């Protein structure tokens, strides 16, 4: 390892101080340094969204963000979505109830992207199928054909609690 730089972040509510290579990607920092392996890597080109997590409340694809860019940030990963008592987030519940996953590899990123989508959703009416489909365009799934993912996100929204943890 070459030159290192200090990094201070809060991940899922827990503060971390690390010395890291400047080129270390956020996703590798989360996975390899903090051992938060729920965030997956699917493509390296920010197409698939498997690595989606939240940085300061916004969904980012962590395979194309340098960890150092997040200095001082609040980060949420899939591991931070359940309640402290292990209660599932409405999106986790929705994906389970609606069979919104098969191999599960895209699921953490899909849930994080959906949480961001629902948090940004404006208007009083329920989120439409089309809004969910367009809103999740940046996340690829090879297993489900998206049908049940859309239902899962709508179910979570309908539960009225589909907000970022």
């Amino acid at each position: 390892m070459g030159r290192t730089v200090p990094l201070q972040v809060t991940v899922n509510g827990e503060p971390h101080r690390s010395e890291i290579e400047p080129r270390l990607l956020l996703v590798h920092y989360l996975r390899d340094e903090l051992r938060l392996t729920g965030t997956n890597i699917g493509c390296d080109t920010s197409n698939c969204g498997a690595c989606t997590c939240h940085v300061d409340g916004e969904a980012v694809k962590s395979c194309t963000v340098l960890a150092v860019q997040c200095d001082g940030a609040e980060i949420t990963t899939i591991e931070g979505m359940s309640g402290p008592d292990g209660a599932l987030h409405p999106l986790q519940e929705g994906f389970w109830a609606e069979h919104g996953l098969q191999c599960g590899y895209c699921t953490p990123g899909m849930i994080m992207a959906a949480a961001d989508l629902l948090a940004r959703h404006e208007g009083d009416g329920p989120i439409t199928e089309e809004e969910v489909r367009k809103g999740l365009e940046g996340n690829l799934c090879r297993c489900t054909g998206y049908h049940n993912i859309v239902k899962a996100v709508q179910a979570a929204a309908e539960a009225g609690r589909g907000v970022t943890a």
Partner: protein
Amino acid sequence: MTTIEQAPANWVGQSLRRKEDPRLITGSATYVDDLTLPGMLWMAIVRSPEAHARIVSIDGSAALERPGIKAVYTGEDMRDLLAPLPMAWAPPGVEQKTPERWPLARGKVCHVGDAVAMVVGDNRYGVVDAAGDVRVEYEPLPVVVDVEEALKDTTVIHESLGTNRAHDWSMGGGDIEQALADSDVVVERRIVNHRTAGAAMETRGVIAEFRGGELTVWSSTQVPHLVRLFYAVQMGISEDKVRVIAPEVGGGFGSKLQVCAEETLCAWASKKLGRPVKWIETRSENMAASHHGRDQVDYVRMGAKSDGTITAFHAKIIQDLGGYCGLLTPMIPELGAFVMTGCYRIPAVKTDITGVYTNKYFTDAIRGAGRPEMTHMLEVTIDQLASELGMDPLELRRKNFIKPEEFPYETPYGITYDSGNYEAAFDRALEIVDLDGFRAEQASLREQGVLRGIGFSTYTEICGLAPSRAVGPSGFGLGIGLYESALVRVHPTGSVTVFTGTSPHGQGHETGFAQIVGDRLGVDPQVVEIIHGDTATGPMGLGTYGSRSLSIGGVACAHAAEKIAEKCRQIVAHNLEADAADIEIHDGRFSLRGDPEKGMTLAEVAGCAYIDATKMPEGMELGLEQSLIYDPTNFVFPFGTHVCVVDVDPETGKVSVLRWVAVDDCGPAINPMLIDGQVHGGVTHGIGQALYEQVVYDDRGQLVTGTFLDYALPTAAEVPSFETDRTETKSPSNSLGVKGIGEAGTIAATPAVVNAVIDALRHEGISYIDMPLTPLRVWQALEEARGRGGGPRGSEQGVELPPQGEGSAGSGPTIPEGGAA
């Protein structure tokens, strides 16, 4: 074997939530890349930028100078391997020329991405840096990319074979030429079924640890037992010293039905260096060096009488093998050939297949494996035949369907379709779509300039792989039988562990198999744990592919559980002083028929079998455990009808899928929710091939689609919600009556899309467009049809569009010189 007389079917048939999901939705599942071992090293692979070249020299010295780099190895360093990577098909009576494929190239490279060296070091990023410092000098050779060009042998890729032509395989039934000559109409067409990628969201990955004479490997694979078997062959380690684990696997779609070079490399390096070695494939490596699918040029001829009776179907298939053969490469079109009659009574059929080497990555099984290609040929040709006969394509199908009373039906190929009721699924689909309403809407939209079309596809497929005698070394020529194992173990407290030799990667076996076993032992599936993907824990198994898991592996679990249930009944009968024949499972207990108050739970029976031996019948073995191998007597043949509705933008050529109706028949449903999920994903995979996805090499063999930036997978915005329904026709091939569903959607989908687009455009004079139906291709076809010429033939991603499939009734044969014999 005695079976439970009263099948309670409490759990089977229910859409139970998946047992797999809690770990997956919380991020606590363990995929290969989530594992780290003490002292673990990383591997990176140096891959060829040349499509065809001699390796002059490889210099790893600069790489070795980098900090943390432990070794650079080349193919020459690995001369101690006992065997090249396997190709497992040796068809009796057919000469198949197969080049040796070593984990690292020896002397020359045959495609971009061919592995020439590995770098091992202690840092994930460091090995990639060092791989860039390995200097490889290549002497470029002429490159052949086009499969029909390769057949001319102007450039021969493997000198030792003397030709690019790997094999010729012909099979059929009836006199095809006579039947075609006697037909009133013959439709001919050249069809390109283009190269695609499996594109599982998790790429491949391996960790190997050689320690104390034993090898443990974690691999993202669909076939852990086959990988173990091959390690024994290639590295000379006896199987009992090898353990292969498929942990959580993030999708496969056939792309992980392979014995991979990287598995060998990690194991070999670990043995050499005495440390665990890990390799995680990047997506660009996955696009270049995980096997591709499809890639055939097909010449089809279909003959019919003027009343619409189909008389003959002939397919000449030129298969692009790529630079080498993988595990099953040359047999993929053959798998499709077995169902070339589809749902129809066609008295004369023939398939002539020629496998050809080109300077591309090798092709192999990807979801459907040969059957999507054959179904595509059949179903687009039937629509064209209907057009030339002036018949409704639906009536043409109906007229030629094999009737329900004709099953079991022996095709001219000598294959016996187990069961079917094609009209029932067809009628149900028609009922859902309201065709009359659609046609009225289509006509009125056309007046407004909107091009809307509807496409149908009726399919049957062969799966449930497979009866071992039929497919094994003395049969079809696979290197092993395709039976499946189950070990059911009831614990002393009455919970159950089931070990299956299948190796799921998203399909939901942990839930579905638990439902099957739960019913048979009178317990909640929540206390039935399904263990898979670990060669050390269960008996030999063959893995998950070919829609085989339920109809082979699930049936094995059922049989093993039934044997335990029979033992339970005897134990209960002994304790109740009753006859075992009078013991039935009722409300979660083994109880006395007619007096359900008297009975025992599985936990109580287990207490007899494990804890208080005095409660066991005299002479009966203690314990409740059963292991068995199930080998089916026939394949299974799921079927169905899929309907696609599209809009084609007349200005841009963009195709939008508006509606999808799928009526599938895979026999009795174990878990309907899981079936629907398989159909949704399968159809989307097919829509991807039909409209968006294509692996493109340029004429120098450079891979143009090396990332997801260039290889377009469908997103949520490109597909509709699906309307799924089922009919239920039991298979007589197994005791559950089940068939398979994993590949059905993909097999059905591509012709439904193409037929829908052609339905929207046929009035413009367009009768066929090769996939993928990109806006450019569709727009160009429209421009040409409208007499505007379409300008010079366009290009996609810098590669000129291939010639469009031509040919129709009376246009004469379109078989190339020197083509398939």
